[in-house]
Every structure is written in structure tokens, then in C-alpha cells.
């Protein structure tokens, strides 16, 4: 039964580790803006189709 002391200790220290990771990230501002990243991730860097599809008749 004494194994349980070690196991409890291990599980608690693991959980405390996660808690600190969370607080550290919250401090860095990761949870301040929960909206803009959702827009940002959908944006491609370039949309190369722009020139061909929309401006075929005006390209000189």
C-alpha cells in the first residue's frame, strides 16, 4: 500500500506542473485575445489567383 504515497506524489507534482504551465502562458497574454487568432489562422499569406481571376481584362 505504500506505493500509493509515491503515486500520489507523482500525480500531484505532474498536475502542479500543468498548473504552472497554464499560469505562465496566461501571464504571457495567450488568453487575452481569444478572437483574432481564429481569424488569423484562416488567412493565407498570398492568394495568387487574384491576378488571373479578377483582373484579366485590365492587365496591360
Amino acid at each position, binding site marked *: 500500500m505504500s506505493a500509493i504515497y509515491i503515486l500520489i506524489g507523482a500525480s500531484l507534482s505532474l498536475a502542479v506542473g500543468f498548473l504552472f504551465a497554464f499560469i505562465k502562458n496566461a501571464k504571457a497574454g495567450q488568453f487575452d485575445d481569444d478572437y*483574432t487568432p481564429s481569424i488569423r489562422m484562416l488567412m493565407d499569406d498570398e*492568394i495568387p489567383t487574384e491576378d488571373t481571376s479578377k483582373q484579366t481584362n485590365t492587365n496591360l
Partner: protein
Amino acid sequence: MESARQQTQTVCYHCGEVCKEDLVMTDDHAFCCDGCKVVYELLKENNLCSYYSIDQHAGISPKLKNFQGRFNYLDDPVVQQKLIRFNDGETTVVVFSLPQMHCSSCVWLLEHLYKLDEGISQSRTEFLRKEITIHYNPQVTTMRKVVELLTTLGYEPLLSLDNLSGKEQKSPQRVRVYRIAVAGFCFANIMMLSFPEYFHITEEGDHQLQTFFSYLNLAISLPVLIYSGGEFFQSAWQSLRAKFLNIDVPLVLSILITFVRSVYEIVSGTGAGYLDSMSGIIFFMLVGRYFQEKTHHALQFDRNYKSFFPISIMLRKGKETEESIPLTNLSVGDVMVIHSQELVPADSKLLSDEAHVDYSFVTGESAPVKIRKGELIYAGGKQTGGAIECEVLREVSQSYLTGLWNRDAFNKGEKVHTTFIDRLARNFTIFLLALSVGGFFYWLPTDMTRGLNALTTVLIVACPCALLLSATFTNGAIMRIFSRNKFYLKNPAVIESLAKVDHIVLDKTGTITNNVIKVKFYGDELGEVELEKVYSLVRHSNHPLSKSLTSHLSFCDARPVTDYVEIPGSGLSGRVDGIEVKIGNAAFCDVDDQSKTSFHGARVHVVILGHYAGYFGFERSFRTGAPEVIDGMKSAASLSFLSGDNEAERESLQKLAGANTPMFFHQTPENKMDYVKSLQDDGAFVAMVGDGLNDSGALQQSQVGIAVSDDVNNFSPACDAILEGSAFGNLDRLFQLAKHAQRIILASFGLSLLYNVVGLSFAVTGTLSPVVAAILMPISSISIILFTNGLSHLSALKLKLNH
């Protein structure tokens, strides 16, 4: 097909506004103005046209085309220093607030600024705060250039005196997140370590293990009590010091008693205590407050005149030179150059020949006032003509407008809301204390332990957390429903004040009416020649009605006028191309005013060559839904109307609101404030609904000040709530929802009391096993959360509001 549609209605490719006559065509796309076209071309040149493919018509029409020199003050290192967040010579970081940011296209474009200016290395937006953080190299570009680029694109940064004085503050919400994290962590672990207790796994020889678990629980519960619960202790302590019992006092009492009793049980080895309940309560309370106070980052509820004034002003130095200085450095005797559409920041004397100043910001009266050389211009007026020069007579803080802020209403500090919860808390606490102490003394002579038991059990079981949870989660749900309906509250206490309102004072101009005047002709159809005659005559007059008629007929050509006579208060007459034209009120034109009662606004009659042609009707259109709103509110509260404007719409308003509704016109900001005060002195609970700065006194004085604004992020005076203009049609139902909220709180409070009573009776008879009790505790909290949320959304559904 294409051309047929274009003839009926063409919308601007850039901003989506309906194009009028002067539409500009480029690349097969139509633009409503040159400004939009310029932005489009700039984007096209830099291959940024996917801006248009993310959201259609996302653009903002850059209304201020000419900003030559307007941002020169940004070259001043002192001003820069106030805006810069970080600077190491290579990289400078600035944060601007861009109220125009409104869609994902905006985010896309603003994060691609580096393509438009090579000095910008990075730009990141924060959509909810409507802020942008820009990193630029000061050796390649300047702050002025960055701001000018943003302005060209239509996103003019909000730079006001207020922005300069205060820097970013750390949000209290973030600290709350830490507290919730700690409480949640400890709550879950304490529950896990209590398993042996719940399931009675207490075989012989394991007594040692159970003691170990109990002490571990005690250790884990300390951070919950000290760190997470800290804000309740603080708030309770503050309220006790102010000799006032708020709801946190009984909560803290209950938490402390639970803790002390648990410590006693663990140390004496008589039990495992109630540390799981204690940390659960703290966890749920914190979550509730987090949701309740999820703030509207981008909105500001405490604006004063400083937020409305520009941060810099152009000064005339010498004949040809202008210099831009920060407004704070403006002193008496300086000569300011005010461009079109700019605010005059201080009381001053006009040096130019004439100015047309729009005081609607200050007084609510919309027609521009003509001011001649040497006359006084009050601060807050907006120049509508060309650029003018004027000499400062009084400092910014001493001006007529800013003087309003020295009145009492602005100095009384935060409005104190004694809420229903606080009152209930007081009675509840007294009752609870009496009950537990009574129980204690009843058992004391016979059985000391039993007396102590009674004392603590009552306090633990009857914890007011149920009541608090009901209130916080209902308020949270209602706040979110409100903001989905474009109604933003400063804090949850406003909901309760809204429910108590019994007198609603409405400002007219800009609040229930739009700011646009509709002009329509009633009578025989006038031909182009006649209209030309009318136009030629009225353009000489400065009467407000003539002014709006002139702009209404601006498509006509002016003809020469002879024998021009203007009789103030009556009308004008003259000969256009030799033909006699009379324009004016009924008496002036010799017509029977009563015969044409179909129209209720202001009227201007037209007589051409002695023949009566008809009249022009002037009407401010009501906001969409305004008649229904007034009708809906009439039944719930008394109404009053105040207006800084003239009486032109008294009749139409009186018809709408009922003949007995008090209405006052030509009201100054002080008049409005005093009116609200007089209502309060008669015992009314007043809500003031207004817009501009001219209502700010009344908004501040009233118990609930609601600012109606077409652009919520831009201009709204200090208030308790901000309503977006487009959502005005919901106002009456929003008031009703606030009333429903109070009933929901009571209902869920009743439900939670029921839980407590049932739980108590089981606990007393000892039929409830610890594991069932441990499961029921969080379930009862969650069921209350679901109950309040469900009911809030249900009543929003019933009131046909967005939810």
C-alpha cells in the same frame, strides 16, 4: 442586365455604400468617391486585393481626404514618447486604437501593413480591443507616416488627450484567471483525495493512509483559501470597514467556518472535514464572477471632454507658417487654425471673416450658427466651412463646455448602486447568525459539542453561495444577451437599476431621430424653372431651414436675384429673373395653415407670382423602430422628452408619445441635468437616454445613463450603458429583459434554498452517504447555472431579442 442593375443601385466596391451620381469607375468596379478608389488602387498596386475576397465591401470610406499637416505633431518627440511602448533605436513599438476595425478583412489588411510601408516590420491586431501593435524602424519611416498610412486606408487611429495621459492597465480579469486555475486544480485534487472517505475504504490498518490524505487535503486547500479566496476576503473587509454588509461578508463567514471546522475534524481525527465543498464554492463563485464581468474591451464608459478633443492643434506662427502643438500646451492668446470638420478646443475669438459653427455636439441644436469676425466661439463647436483662424480666450480646462464637468454630478464619483443582493445579504446574514447562535445557546447547557455542531452546520449548509451563484450567473447571461443586441453595460449592477427605472427621459435630436433632415415638397409639382427660383432666393438666407433647403436643391443653377428682402422670423421675398417669389411661413405667404394638417414638421410655403404653389416639409426621420419603442416604454414608465433643438417636431412627437408627455425644447446641457435632478427630487428613478456631449450632464445625473451612438467605439459620453443606434428599436424590450432578470434571480434563489433545505434534512437524519453528498454539491451548483442561463435565454426568445 449589368447596366440595368447599375442604374437602379450601385454599391461601392470598396466600402459597400450606395453610390450617388458622382460614381467613379476603375477596373470595372464602381466606387462611391475618389477616396475609396485611391485605397483600392493602393491595395491593387501592392497585390493586396484579397482584402476584397475575404469579406465583401469591407472597406471604410476615407472621409477625411485632406490631412495635410494634420498629423505633424506626431513628429514631436514629446508626443511620440507618450505613445511609444518600446524603443531601442532600431525598432519602435506603438499601439493605436482603431475603432473602425470591424471584420476579418480589416485584420488581414492591417496585418499586411509591411507591404505598404517597408519601414514597418510587423503589425498585429487585437480585434476585440480594436487595437493594433505596430513595430517599425524609426530610421526608415516615422510615426507620422504610419498614422497617415492608416488614415489613408480609412483606419484613422483614435488619438485623443485621454489616450495620451493614461497607458495600458493590467486587466483584473487576468488575475482572476490565475485564481480560477488554482481553485479548479485544488478542488479537483481534493475531491480525488477524498475518494477513500466517500467510499468508506477504511479497512483496518489503513487509518494511517486516511490521515495522510486528510492532511494532504488540508495542505492543498490552503492556496484556495488564501490565494483564490483572497478577493472575497478583501471585498468583505472593505465593506465591513465602510460599516456596510455586502454579500461577501456572509460568504466569507461561511468559508471560514467551514475551514475551521474541517481543521478541527482533521486534527482531532473525528472526520475528514468539508474542504471539498469549500474549494468547490470558491471555484464556482470565481467562475461566475469571471463570466459576469467579462468586459467590453473596446468600449469606454468613463469618457469626459478630453476624449473628444484632438490631441494637437495647429497654431499660426507668422504669416505663412503653421505649427502643430499638443493641446495641453495651448495657452491664452495663441492663434489657432481650425480646418473644416474640426472641433474648436477652447473658447476663442474669431479672427477670420466668418465661420459656420455646428454646436450640435454641445447643445443638440443641429443647424450651424453663423459667427462673424470678432465674435466668440465656444469650445466644442465644429467648423463646417473652410479653415478659420481664432484667438484663444480661455484655456481648455476653463472653457464653457468643460465647465460642465466641474458641476456636482461629475464630482460625486462612482454612482453607488445598493443592489437587491446586498440588501438581501444583510437580512440573510442577520437571520443566519441569529439562527446559529440561537442553536448554540439552546444546546449549550446540556451538550457543548452538539451546540458547536449546530452552530457550524447551519452556517455551512445555509451558505449564501447559492444566492450569489444565482445572481452572478443570471447577470452574466443577461449581459451577454444585451451585448448580442448591441447594448453594452458598464457593469452588472446596471441590470438591476434598469429594472427599477420608472421614469425615462429621452433626448430628441440624434437619440430618437436620425441626424439627417428629410425635405419634401407638398403641393403642385414644381418644375425645374420654379425650383431654380426657390434655390436662387434661399441661398442668400442663413436661416437653418433655408440652409437645408439650399443643400436639398443644390443641383439647381443660381439665377440673379433683385429686390431681396428677408424678414427675420417670417420669410424672404425677391425677384428672380423679374418674377416675384415669396418664401416663408403661413402668415407671410397669406395661406391658411390649418387646411393642410397632413404634415407635422416644419413648413416653408412658396408663392410664385402671387400664386400659392405649396410648401416644403422638413422632417427629421425617426430612428427605425422609434415609434414602437416609445409605445412600448409608455406602458412601463413615465416618459419625458428634452431637446436642445427647436420646436419643429413637437406635434409629431406629441402624437407619438401622448398629449400629456412633458416635452421641453431649447434645452441647454445644464437645463437637461437640472430637469433630471428635479425628477429625482420627486422620488423618480430616472433613466436618461441621450447621445452627444450635450447630454453628458443628464447622463451622469440620472441613475441609469444610456448613450445612444451610431459608432459605439468612437464617440459616446460618460454613461452606464451604450446602445448602438441601429439597435434602438429594441430598447423597450431590453428594459423588460432587465425586469425579467430580477425574477429569474429570485426563482433560482428559491430553487437553491430548496436544495439547501432538502440537503439539511437529509444531513440531520444521516441518511445521505458522503459520496452522494459530494456528488450532489457540484451538481446542484451546475443545475443552478443551467437554470439561470436557460431562463434568461428563454425570456430573450419570448421578447424576440437576439440570444
